């Protein structure tokens, strides 16, 4: 593919991520921190997010399997997960994290279970889209 086409494709994919609400303006902050001296900053942060958040997901899964539910612990783990999501601009993931925390606060186990599935879904959906975008953006450079 010509460089031009790749750049247009990358721009298109990037716009879609914002338009469809997957990313918010915090992602632009990350992009602004990328330069010639740090050409892969965005990719590095995203990779770090996914390796780090796998840990949170595992811990929440384990904690949800314990009975009785430790809602304080669940809320604490999710607080950290939400923080990381917020730092990379993962808008939909962050929204689901907030919902999960709300169910924790009222001790609603069913709500937690359901919302956690949604967190995982959004987390996985973003991963696919953002990795595809970053790959094309890299090729287009």
């Amino acid at each position: 593919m010509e460089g031009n086409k790749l750049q247009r494709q990358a721009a298109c994919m990037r716009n879609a991520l914002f338009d469809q609400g997957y990313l918010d303006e915090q992602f632009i902050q990350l992009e602004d921190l990328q330069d010639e001296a740090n050409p892969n900053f965005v990719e590095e942060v995203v990779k770090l997010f996914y390796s780090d958040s796998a840990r949170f997901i595992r811990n929440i899964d384990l904690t949800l399997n314990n009975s009785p539910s430790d809602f304080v612990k669940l809320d604490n783990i999710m607080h950290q997960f939400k923080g990381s999501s917020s730092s990379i601009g993962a808008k939909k993931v962050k929204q689901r994290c907030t919902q999960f925390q709300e169910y924790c606060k009222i001790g609603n186990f069913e709500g937690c279970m359901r919302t956690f599935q949604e967190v995982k879904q959004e987390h996985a959906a973003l991963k696919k889209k953002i990795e595809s975008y970053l790959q094309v953006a890299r090729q287009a450079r």
Partner: protein
Amino acid sequence: MQFHVLAVDDSVIDRKLIERLLKTSSYQVTVVDSGVKALEYLGLVDDEIANTNTDSNPISTIKNHHEVEVNLIITDYCMPGINGYDLLRKIKESTTLKNIPVVIMSSENIPSRINNCLEQGAEEFFLKPVKQSDVNKLKPHLMRGKGKENQPNFVVNKRKPMAECLSPDRIRTKYNYI
């Protein structure tokens, strides 16, 4: 002159972010992942050990008078173990470290938390995710800190009434909950 900032955060993502943000301002950056490690780096833990342990190793006492100079400390609030507020308090209670400006970061906009930190001597309170515009606010605090070093008998200044010394952004934060 180059300023040296110590950043403290238990989140690996936020550590990477704050490091990069600080480096864009050409600051020298040291990043640690806990309040305990921050205290060790600042030599405070050695202080306590040296004071309580009568047969303390001379080397650990020498370590108190560290060559490392820190011009500003920026720390997350929510951390396991010693949180940002405790770290702030220990720094302000230390004769050697109390003049180092401290900035707190938090993902939660809780007015009482913000006010407590500012009352305890924090220069700024940044809401996460921290942005470039936040980091740009550090310069005056760093400049002021450098000035104080040249006055060894500097007396702790009386704090002005809160409203007088808050920047517009902080006032905005303070009144958000009304």
